[in-house]
């Protein structure tokens, strides 16, 4: 549904994207992760024809954004980190103005989008009276008009309170489920990506450092929570085997080793093992591991990633 082919972009001599290639399938919720300045917004800008790439092309539903922008974007809706509105006009009038640039949109279609995002009761009010959450919902309503196949969401929950984040997240999941929308979501909120996305890509300094399923990242997690009756003794045994003590009952098995061997060694030495539980992977830790090589050129510890040139 979305394809980026070897996209590069430089701003004032500073590279923002290096030969970025991505493929996002129809109906997928895809997450684009990266810190500020990683190249997420540039990627979005290029996909929307708002930023001209130095090299490469972006395709939406097989149509090149660079060669045939209008046709490509007819399939897409988008929202940005801080969406801009005409604050002195009503939400409804804002939707009329923005959607008019996509052609004729029926009032009934606008009403459905407004209802979908739960803004019906306030849509005739001036946007300046809206809360941040309501502005985000209005932005989402305009992105859903008129019936896109793809929505590009650049930091959609930025600045929202937990309730607002939950609302937007639920809405995105519902739209994906009910309308089969393909969603490309950028965020630096790792929990958001973790809960929403089936596949992710991680950008660091404009380079793609990981692309794949969340499970791919999860599978390389080798951390375990182990409760024993004699922690000091267990740590001595860990030192002799290929296990690193991370503290707080968390142990990390070094690559190529098996946790079962460590547990067997504990039992053999008379230590009572009360709990062995794989640590729920923390995306933040994995994310930091993923970007570490590019930032520091040190080898990735315990994590094998497809680092793209």
């Amino acid at each position, binding site marked *: 549904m979305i394809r980026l082919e070897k996209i590069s972009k430089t*701003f004032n001599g500073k590279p923002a994207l290096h030969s970025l290639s991505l493929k996002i399938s129809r109906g997928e919720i895809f997450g684009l992760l990266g810190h500020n300045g990683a190249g997420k*917004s*540039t990627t979005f*800008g290029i996909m*929307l*024809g*708002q*930023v*001209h790439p130095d090299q490469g092309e972006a395709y939406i539903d097989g149509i090149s954004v660079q060669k045939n*922008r*209008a*046709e*490509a*974007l*007819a399939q*897409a*809706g*988008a929202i*940005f*980190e*801080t*969406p*801009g*509105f*005409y604050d*002195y*006009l009503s939400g409804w*009038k804002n939707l*009329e*103005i*923005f*959607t*008019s*640039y*996509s*052609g*004729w949109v029926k009032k009934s279609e606008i009403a459905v989008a407004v209802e979908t995002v739960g803004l019906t009761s306030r849509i005739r009010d001036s946007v300046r009276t809206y809360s941040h959450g309501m502005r985000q919902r209005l*932005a989402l309503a*305009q992105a859903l008009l008129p019936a896109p196949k793809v929505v*590009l969401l*650049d930091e959609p929950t930025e600045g929202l309170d937990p309730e607002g984040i939950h609302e937007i997240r639920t809405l995105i999941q519902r739209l994906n489920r009910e309308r089969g929308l393909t969603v490309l979501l950028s965020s630096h909120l790792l929990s958001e990506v973790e809960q929403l996305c089936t596949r992710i890509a991680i950008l660091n300094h404009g380079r793609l450092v990981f692309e794949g399923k969340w499970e791919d990242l999860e599978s390389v997690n080798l951390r375990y929570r182990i409760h024993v009756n004699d922690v000091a003794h267990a740590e001595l045994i860990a030192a002799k085997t290929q296990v690193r003590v991370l503290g707080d009952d968390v142990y990390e098995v070094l690559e190529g080793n098996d946790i079962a061997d460590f547990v067997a060694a504990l039992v053999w030495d008379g230590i009572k093992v009360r709990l062995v539980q794989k640590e729920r992977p923390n995306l933040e830790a994995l994310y930091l591991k993923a970007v570490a090589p590019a930032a520091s050129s040190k080898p990735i510890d315990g994590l094998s990633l497809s680092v793209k040139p």
Partner: protein
Amino acid sequence: MMLFLHQLGLELRKLFGRKRTYIGFGAFLVIELLILVFCQMPGPQRGLRRQMEGLGYGADQYLSGLTMAFQMVSFTVFILGGLYLALVAGDVVAKEVEEKTMRMILCRPVSRIRVLAIKYIACVIYTFSLIGFIGGTAIAIGVAWKGTGGMFAFAPLEGIVAFYSFAEGLNRFLAGLAVLALMLTTVSTLGFGLSCFDMKPAAATIITLSYFFVDMIFRQIPYFQSIKAWFITSHMEWRQVFLPHIPIPQMIEDGAYLMGVNATIVVIAMAVFQQRNFKS
């Protein structure tokens, strides 16, 4: 075409939906009233009467609503017209970029050229509306205050000293407003053009105003008389319609010159806007 008109209608709704737009209109009204009050003061009143009577015309007949309207429009446009048009035109694109609404528009399947064309036409319509408002209120206030009567058109720098009947004066006044609006589109166009560059709205306004200010001063310096025609403001003499014999060929030439300048600015602005990157 219908869609284009629909988009243009919404653009105008945006433009006229701002309170600031009406604050500006209100400011013009206040200035007009101040000029009218000033003209009623004994000193200026005496001066006007003396001029008319010195030329052999009755002040009671020609110190009328139309004469007042002529003076009000001349001074109002000189004091505020350029400033306000530059302010609004400088906002048209740059403000939308600054407030990020432009990005919301540009993620739609519409070409940048079309977006700018809509905005530019709205800008021109606004210029005509503003001049229409200034002229309309000047006539309304003038006639309400001084009644109908002949027109005394007096603009010494342009060599205009003329007397007309009410009907002819009104026709010339309306024609003058149309010419003025057309000529002021160049101010709007420069403001609009600059706002398409990567700059703040205030910068576009200030550069526009500075340009016209410098242009107006330089063309009046004797040293530059030989190249006077190169100054844009030399071609903005809207009051020529009040000369007894209207220099139509000269006015057509001026109009063509200004339209050429406008077209050049718009083409450059569109080319620059087309190349710009929009990113938060």
